[in-house]
């Protein structure tokens, strides 16, 4: 391992170690109070998008709104709401966009079906290409005797030069 790689890996290790401690410090007190509820909160907030950062879940994000929503979820868990009721609460306010796993429906068909369609298209193109290539190979005729001797003569001419 080069010195440079060593330094880079140390920096990374230190970075991850430090963020892990910060995260665990924040959660520890709350988890100690009610581990079951905190686990539900964690699970639910990993399903929900933080609309401020958009590419983070409510669990990952430290935006004000994510904190508020985690507090809101904690309150709903404490008042005995089911997971579905809590998710619905969010969808009613923020729309399907708040769900990290968008529901399958008319408007999301392309999203869910798109990759499959693209894969089928790729397979189709691949198959067509392979067929064409196979046809080209069988179309290749061996050289006739006359062509053979001409090729040989040409090669010989090259060698003599």
């Amino acid at each position, binding site marked *: 391992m080069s010195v440079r790689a060593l330094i880079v890996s140390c920096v990374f290790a230190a970075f991850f170690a430090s963020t892990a401690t910060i995260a665990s410090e924040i959660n520890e007190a709350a988890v100690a109070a009610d581990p079951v509820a905190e686990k539900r909160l964690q699970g639910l907030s990993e399903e929900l998008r933080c*609309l*401020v950062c958009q590419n983070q879940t409510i669990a990952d994000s430290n935006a*004000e709104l994510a904190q508020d929503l985690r507090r*809101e979820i904690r309150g709903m868990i404490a008042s005995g709401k089911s997971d579905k009721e809590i998710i619905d609460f969010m969808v009613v*306010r923020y*729309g*399907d966009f708040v769900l990290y796993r968008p529901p399958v429906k008319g408007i999301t068909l392309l999203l869910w079906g798109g990759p499959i369609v693209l894969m089928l298209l790729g397979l189709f193109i691949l198959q067509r290409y392979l067929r064409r290539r196979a046809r080209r190979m069988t179309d290749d005729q061996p050289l006739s005797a006359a062509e053979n001797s001409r090729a040989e003569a040409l090669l010989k001419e090259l060698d003599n030069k």
Partner: protein
Amino acid sequence: MNRYYWILGAFAALVALLAIGLGLNPRDVPSPLVGKPAPAFSLPILATPNKTLGPKDMEGKVWLLNVWSSWCVSCRQEHPVLVEFSKKSDVPLVGLNYKEVRGDGGFDMSKMSADDEKKLAFQRANTWLSQHGDPYKLTVMDLDGRVGIDYGVYGVPETYVIDKAGVIRMKHTGPISPDVLGKKIMPLLAELNK
């Protein structure tokens, strides 16, 4: 040669798609609240803190609900447009001050009592409006942002157009530009007020 046209065409299509994508506003998330009744609330009024206001009090009127805060930078950009609007239009504009103190980020909320927060929030909101002009018929104070959650607020400023029956007809996220006001909001208000 034919094949190169194909590749070039596919590339051009990709560039076109990316260009369209870059032109879109990622904050413009369609609100599920459009077409639904405005969520009820009852919040203290900035000018008269012992009185409250809610959507029920506005029934029978087409009105605008504008979410703002003194710490919100984009609100400052939008504010002159609102001031101008309030001078020209009779449509009541109600302000919803969102998390005036705790949204600021500059205060340690664990060290502040509820009373202190309330006092500070009202004072800050009043100061801001006297500095920048007050376009609002009145402003209500959402100190903890709970009403904001009911309205699906995620980026101040946000503006809702609410019709006579109390149904949300439009939501605009982000600052209102003169363009948005003239081309989208004003025509809608005219139509709703017919």
